[in-house]
Each structure stands twice: as structure tokens, then as C-alpha cells.
């Protein structure tokens, strides 16, 4: 049994890769080949689909928009979560437990429920169709997560570190930025990764809050699919390209992902 152990993850990974392979292989096929006859791999590989995406601004601006609001969201979420997580990990204060659970409940709010009110809210404050609107809306579920992860990492740092720094004459902001944050930089990396990930994959709110100027790539895909008929190859190419940023980010934090959740408190 122990000998065949490697089989389990291998079979699972193959299962994971199959649909991805199908998407990638389709992105190199012509529309004719996709619809015409069934082929396991591209018979006449073409880069046409990718060329279209990289030359047509309505396509590639989608990527720019997505990356813009995702980065903005990551920065806002982590920056706001850092002091809050510090408060939860170091101090006890009135209502801290309730506040923490309330923050977590926001992860439970179904995006579908909030889509319409969000649209009205952001229209009312004049942020509709801006990157900032999506970035702010995504903090709803990313901030609780970031606070949760960071709190776990911070609780792993002994309080003596804080005390030593004060004895050495550090002011709080200087201590926090110069000493504390570098100490938990792995935690900051993990929190940023999860914020990036959940903001990148979410579409419902992003689509609701944008029209043209800040439209995410994933939304561009659905629009194109319906307006100009089924250009499956083009769709597949765009889909393939949405996998790449995540894959790059995950490579950098691969050693910390598992720890990030393990250290968070329940």
C-alpha cells in the first residue's frame, strides 16, 4: 500500500489537469477544427486567437482592468487588516469576539444577494465603473480573511519582541513598520496571496459594478461569447490567459500557503 501511495496524488493531479489541457489545446485550434471534427490535440496549431487578444484593446484592456483592481484590492485589504489583526492578536477590548465573528459573517454573505444593492450604493457615491469600486467591494470578503490569516501569524510572534522594541525606544509606528511587519512577512505574503486569489476569481460583483472603463477580462469573455457568436478558440485563449497570473503568484508563495490557513484561528 505504501508503495502505491504516490499513485493517489498523481491520479488526482491528472484529473485536475485534464479540463485545463482541453482549454489550452482548444486555444491553439481554429474554430473550424473545434466544431468540425473531434481531435485530441491541435492538428494545425495556430496563434491567431492569442494574436487577436493582444492586438484588440477591448480584449487586452480587460486584463489591465482586472490586474488593476485586484492589485488595488490586495493593497487596501492587507493595509487595513494589519493594524486590526495586531489589535486582535495583542489586546482584549470591548466586543472583540463579536467583532471578529461579525467580520467572518461577511464572508458568508452571498454575492448574489448583494449584487443589486452594491450597484445602487456605488452608483450613488459616483464610483460606478471605476477600478476603485471593485477593489472596495471585494474588501467585503477579503478583509475578514486577511485579518484571520494575519492574526494567526502575529499570535505566533512572542510579545517580548514588542516589549523589547519599546524598551529600546522605538515609537509604535516605527516599531510596527520597521520591526514587526518584516518579522511576519511570510504572513503578509500569504494574506496578500489569498486576497489576490479571491479578488481575481470573483466575477459577479466585478461585473455588476463595471460597464466599460473598468470591465474585467472575465466579463469581456461572456460579452463576446454572446454578441459575436461562439468563437470558442478565442474564448479558450482568453481563459488560458486568466490562469497564468494565478499560477505565477502561487509559485512564489508555495511554501507558505498551507501554513497560512493552519495558523489562522477558528
Amino acid at each position, binding site marked *: 500500500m505504501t508503495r502505491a501511495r504516490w499513485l493517489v496524488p498523481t491520479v488526482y493531479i491528472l484529473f485536475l489537469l485534464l479540463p485545463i489541457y482541453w482549454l489550452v489545446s482548444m486555444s491553439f485550434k481554429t474554430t473550424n477544427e473545434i466544431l468540425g471534427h473531434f481531435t485530441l490535440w491541435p492538428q494545425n496549431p495556430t496563434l491567431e486567437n492569442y494574436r487577436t487578444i493582444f492586438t484588440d484593446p477591448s480584449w487586452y484592456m480587460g486584463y489591465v482592468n482586472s490586474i488593476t483592481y485586484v492589485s488595488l484590492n490586495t493593497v487596501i485589504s492587507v493595509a487595513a487588516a494589519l493594524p486590526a489583526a495586531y489589535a486582535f492578536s495583542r489586546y482584549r477590548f*470591548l466586543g472583540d469576539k463579536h467583532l471578529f465573528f461579525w467580520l467572518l459573517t461577511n464572508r458568508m454573505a452571498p454575492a448574489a444577494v448583494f449584487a443589486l444593492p452594491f450597484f445602487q450604493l456605488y452608483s450613488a457615491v459616483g464610483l460606478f465603473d471605476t477600478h476603485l469600486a471593485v477593489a472596495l467591494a471585494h474588501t467585503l470578503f477579503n478583509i475578514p480573511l486577511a485579518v484571520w490569516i494575519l492574526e494567526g501569524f502575529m499570535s505566533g510572534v512572542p510579545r517580548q519582541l514588542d516589549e523589547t522594541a519599546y524598551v529600546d525606544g522605538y515609537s509604535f509606528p516605527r516599531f510596527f513598520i520597521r520591526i514587526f511587519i518584516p518579522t511576519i512577512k511570510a504572513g503578509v505574503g500569504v494574506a496578500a496571496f489569498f486576497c489576490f486569489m479571491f479578488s481575481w476569481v470573483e466575477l459577479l460583483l466585478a461585473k455588476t459594478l463595471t460597464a466599460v472603463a473598468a470591465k474585467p477580462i472575465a466579463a469581456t469573455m461572456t460579452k463576446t461569447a454572446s454578441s459575436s457568436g461562439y468563437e470558442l478558440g478565442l474564448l479558450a485563449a482568453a481563459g488560458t490567459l486568466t490562469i497564468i497570473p494565478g499560477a505565477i503568484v502561487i509559485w512564489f508563495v508555495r511554501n507558505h500557503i498551507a501554513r497560512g490557513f493552519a495558523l489562522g484561528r477558528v
Partner: protein
Amino acid sequence: MNGKIVNQKAWFFVIPVLLLVSFNAIVPLMTVINYSVQETFGDNVFFWSGLTWFQEILRSERFHAALTRQAIFTGAILAIEVPLGVAIALAMPRKGIWVSVCLVLMALPLLIPWNVVGAMWNIFALPNIGLLGKGLNALGFDYNYTRQVGDAWFTLILMDVWHWTSLVVLLAYAGLVSIPDAYYQAARIDGASRWAVFRHIQLPKMRRVLTIAILLRFMDSFNIYTEPVVLTGGGPGNATTLLSIDLVKIALGQFDLGPAAAMSLIYFLIILALSWIFYAVMTRNEEQ
């Protein structure tokens, strides 16, 4: 217990988070509550309708049907993903470069935008041009998820297993690697069987992360919208119309804001209550 200092000034640290989350959570929630107790005949004229919508929703066949489908879906994916995720985590290598390779490859589905996941499976499972659909038909199955209810459910659940089992794997794996070697060594010396090691060492140590995994999977599967909409659009018929899909159909499709809002609240309360019960039970057991 961990000797935290009581300090009310800590509230200042929480203010930025509080402002951001309140802005996003409270105003929309108030809007939803507002709609849920009013009736409109268009032109932005609203009338107070009390709890009529709530009564109507709670009695409606349609809501019951959607809720049942939702419960079956969530139950099924939890029953598959949690044991499968644990089993895969147990079989993962503990050291060496294969760990990184496994983790990165397994995390891939988690990083794909949800509608791309739906689109990808939509194509992958098509009986005429998809690998899965074509493959199953070639093996002699009469498979067509756009027409047959059973096939639609099979595809939906398979897609969710594909999409989210890795999250359980990552968490369970994190729990497993945090077990010191001495536990395994002591168990070997005590002559423990493989099953005893799992039952008395690995499972208890994974308990905390599994709580997180089940909680996250429960909340997220109850909220699922984008992937099934892109995959099946809730069909064939209403066969795979889960709660969120139904809700959006009512709210945006028929523009019945009142019932949609009431339904949202009922829905939100169900998730909240179930999560809270689960959370309370798991943490109480922990304290024992």
C-alpha cells in the same frame, strides 16, 4: 489564557477595517431589508407591506424546491470533497521537491476565475466537442448534460469536486505536516496499526483545519452562483437551479425586488445560523 492585555484603545487599530467593511456590509444590507418589507408598482413608488413577502417566500413551492436542491448539492460535495481531500493529503509526499510540485498543481483550479471554470467545464463536457462528453459516449454511456437531469447533476458535482477539493487537501496537508515526527515514532514503538495512527494521531491533529475546511466549503457552496450558471444555466428546466441562481432570476429576471430581498435575507440567515451552530459545536468539543 494567553494573557492578552485589556486595552480599549485597540479599537483605533480596528477603525479602518470597520469603516471599509461597514460601508460594504451595512448599507447594502439595509437596502435589502428596506426592499423586503415594501411593495412597488413601478415608478419608484413603494408601499409598506410588512412581512408579507417573507410569508409568501417561506410558503412557496419554488423556494422549497430550490432549498432542497441546494441542500442536496451542499451535502453531496461535502460528503465527497472532505474524505477525498483528507485521503489525498495523507498520500502526499512530506518532503522534497514533489511537495512544491504537488501543491502548485493542486492549487491551480483555485486560481481560475469562476466563470472560466464554468466555461471550461461547459466545453469539456459537451458531448460533441468536449473530451469528457465525447469520452463518456465513446465508452458507451448515453451522456448529455444539457438534456438529462442526472447527467447535469453529475457534471455539476464533478466540476465542484474538481474546483474545490484542493482547498481541503491544502488545509488537511497543513494539519498533517504540523504533527511532530515523534508522534509517528512513538506510535510505531507502541505497535499501532495504520488505522490506529490515523484515528488517534492524524485525525485529532487535523481537527482544527478540517473545521475551517468544512466551514469554508459549506459557506462557499451555499453561495455558489457563477459556475453553475455558466455550466448549465440552472437547467435542464430548473433541475440545477440552486438558491443563488433562483434569487437572481427573481431579482433581475422578473425584477420582483420585494420577494427577492426577502428571499435574500432568509437565505443569509440560514447560512449564518448553520455556520454558527457548526462553529459552536466544533469549538465546544475542542474545549472539552
